[in-house]
């Protein structure tokens, strides 16, 4: 529809506009609050790393990142462990109620988190898991486990069943076949699934904020509380924001060819 040169220009303009807000935050993060409120400049005239240094030395800030990474990792491990066998069952076998259960999993991926926030709060208070990393990790399983099952099922269905059949004829047991042959075959899919579990747990705000008070307080919470306080420290907020982008930006290269598949629940 468009000629090559025009396409490149259009794309370049989009990229420029897209980066502008991110650049602006980066700009803010390198300036002191007095400087920010003093004058509007396109680039930091007197760049300072004071905001970043504060985040890395103040435990109430850097513990936010540590807490987030802890529950995200726990959630990723739980999701992958339980989703792998289930995805295999859905991709290889037909059993009573399989489509119904598969659909039910999808509804949990799509369910409004706001519906579950209050009962989760009550549930985790009752069983004494409030303000722990495991509580947030389990809460995020609500949408990440179904997501993992769906994405993995998509990848597994791409592997011909003849491989399974040959292995079973050769005398492999199901667990041995699964661990030594099958998982290596779909390792790209496992990686992509791990990435998406990581991501959706990392970006989530409502559960993480509702289920924590101090010990497991995630960075998202630390940041929103700064916003509601009067006398905003914009530079600090910007620096914290920049740091939350880093993990995603670091791994994006490895999943670039599978992103569409992951977002579409393994269906593209």
């Amino acid at each position, binding site marked *: 529809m468009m000629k090559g040169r025009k396409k490149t220009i259009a794309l370049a303009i989009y990229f420029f506009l897209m980066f502008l807000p991110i650049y602006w935050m980066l700009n803010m993060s390198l300036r002191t609050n007095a400087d920010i409120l003093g004058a509007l400049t396109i680039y930091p005239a007197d760049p300072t790393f004071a905001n970043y240094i504060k985040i890395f030395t103040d435990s109430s800030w850097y513990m936010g990142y540590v807490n987030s990474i802890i529950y995200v990792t726990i959630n990723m491990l739980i999701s992958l462990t339980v989703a792998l066998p289930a995805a295999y069952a859905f991709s290889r076998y037909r059993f*009573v*109620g399989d*489509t*119904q259960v598969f659909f039910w999993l999808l509804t949990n991926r799509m369910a409004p988190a706001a519906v579950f926030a209050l009962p989760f709060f*009550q*549930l985790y*208070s*009752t069983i*004494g898991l409030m303000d722990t990393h495991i509580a947030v990790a389990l809460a995020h399983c609500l949408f990440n486990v179904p997501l993992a099952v769906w994405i993995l099922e998509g990848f597994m269905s791409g592997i011909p069943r003849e491989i399974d059949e040959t292995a079973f004829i050769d005398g492999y047991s199901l667990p041995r076949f699964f661990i030594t042959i099958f998982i290596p075959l779909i390792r790209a899919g496992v990686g992509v699934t791990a990435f998406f579990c990581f991501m959706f747990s990392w970006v989530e705000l409502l559960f993480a904020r509702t289920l924590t008070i101090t010990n497991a307080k995630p960075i998202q919470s630390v940041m929103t509380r700064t916003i509601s306080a009067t006398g905003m420290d914009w530079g600090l907020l910007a620096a914290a924001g920049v740091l939350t982008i880093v993990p995603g930006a670091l791994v994006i290269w490895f999943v670039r060819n599978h992103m569409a598949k992951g977002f579409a629940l393994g269906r593209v």
Partner: protein
Amino acid sequence: MHLTLEWMYWTRPTAIFFIVLFVILAAMTIWQTLAPSVPRRGFLPLATTPGTRLFLGIISAIFIHLAWIGLTDLSLWIVFPFAVGWIIVVMIWG
């Protein structure tokens, strides 16, 4: 740590509702295990299995009830038989 069910605020009507739902699901599972059904076309615009028809029937019955509550002040028991009848219709001819 005390594991009670008090925080869930159980009431008798909701308990009955869940027991009925559970019994229906169990019955469906047993039926489909003994005699698996294949998808077929009825008056609904897509091929459905009994499980799908049950889901659609129950969901639409709930919406019928909600519309009743929202639009009228009459007792729910008036619309209840119609909703159940609707579920049966969907199950048989859907």
